[in-house]
């Protein structure tokens, strides 16, 4: 967890340092169990390919969760997320090896809002392709 970010200390336009999160088949199995989403495309390569996907893909919500970590780790423990939305533009492909896929998240302070809130514009890429678009979080800061 990072230091606490304050409203007064944030400037519109500031860039947040990018972070890369790895995702392996084991991560997806754990996420299946923790989330209750056992859709076969997240763990069964045979069925994933039979329905036209390149391979097993990560849950969109796993990818969104990584963007959430990015926001809350940056903002600090006293921050509170009030809005968080994403569009899943492309799947995160997770090959059956020990490396898996990678999700690189970056962000920028889009604007300062009233009520000590800020809007963050987020970007997530995997294998060079945008996997989240229109990703935005509103955070209330101390």
């Amino acid at each position: 967890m990072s230091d606490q970010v304050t409203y007064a200390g944030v400037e519109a336009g500031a860039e947040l340092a990018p972070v890369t999160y790895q995702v392996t088949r084991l991560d997806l199995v754990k996420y299946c169990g923790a989330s209750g989403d056992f859709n076969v495309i997240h763990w069964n390569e045979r069925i994933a390919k039979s329905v036209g996907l390149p391979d097993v893909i990560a849950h969109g919500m796993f990818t969104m969760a990584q963007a959430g970590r990015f926001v809350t780790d940056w903002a600090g423990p006293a921050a509170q997320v009030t809005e968080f939305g994403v569009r899943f533009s492309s799947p995160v492909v997770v090959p059956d090896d020990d490396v898996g896929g990678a999700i690189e998240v970056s962000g920028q302070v889009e604007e300062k809002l009233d009520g000590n809130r800020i809007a963050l514009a987020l970007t997530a890429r995997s294998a060079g392709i945008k996997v989240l678009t229109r990703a935005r979080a509103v955070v209330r800061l101390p």
Partner: protein
Amino acid sequence: MAINPDYIGKTYPPSAPYEVSRVKLAEFADAIGDRSPLYRDRAAAQAAGYLDVIAPPTFPIVISMAASAQAIVDPGLNLNYAMVVHGEQRFSYSRPLMAGDVVTAQVTISDIRTVGRNAMMTTTTEISTVDGEHVCTAFGTLVERAGAG
């Protein structure tokens, strides 16, 4: 073979009460790789101003998705779940979910539309405590991809 548009506006009954537990929050945080103590250490959560450990921002999907199962398995809706991918997701929070919360989720199908060869369905899920306090609204869009054949 498309999603039945007659279901736009349909609201399902509230889900059975769901009790948010510390063990589940820690399990979910582990599964997303998030090591924040706010999700597993009560003292750390209290130091940040909460009564108990809180949920990561995407945790409400566990509750909204379980409630959405009512719609997904509704035979009249005609959704082919094997062809479904998640299109969009948004949450609007009054506060974080917290261990000890007992909540229900009420799902409304807010939109069904066709985009190219795909069908899309948007649901709006209100998550509130059994005492009627709003915690979070989840807006989810599922995309049913057209088959190869």
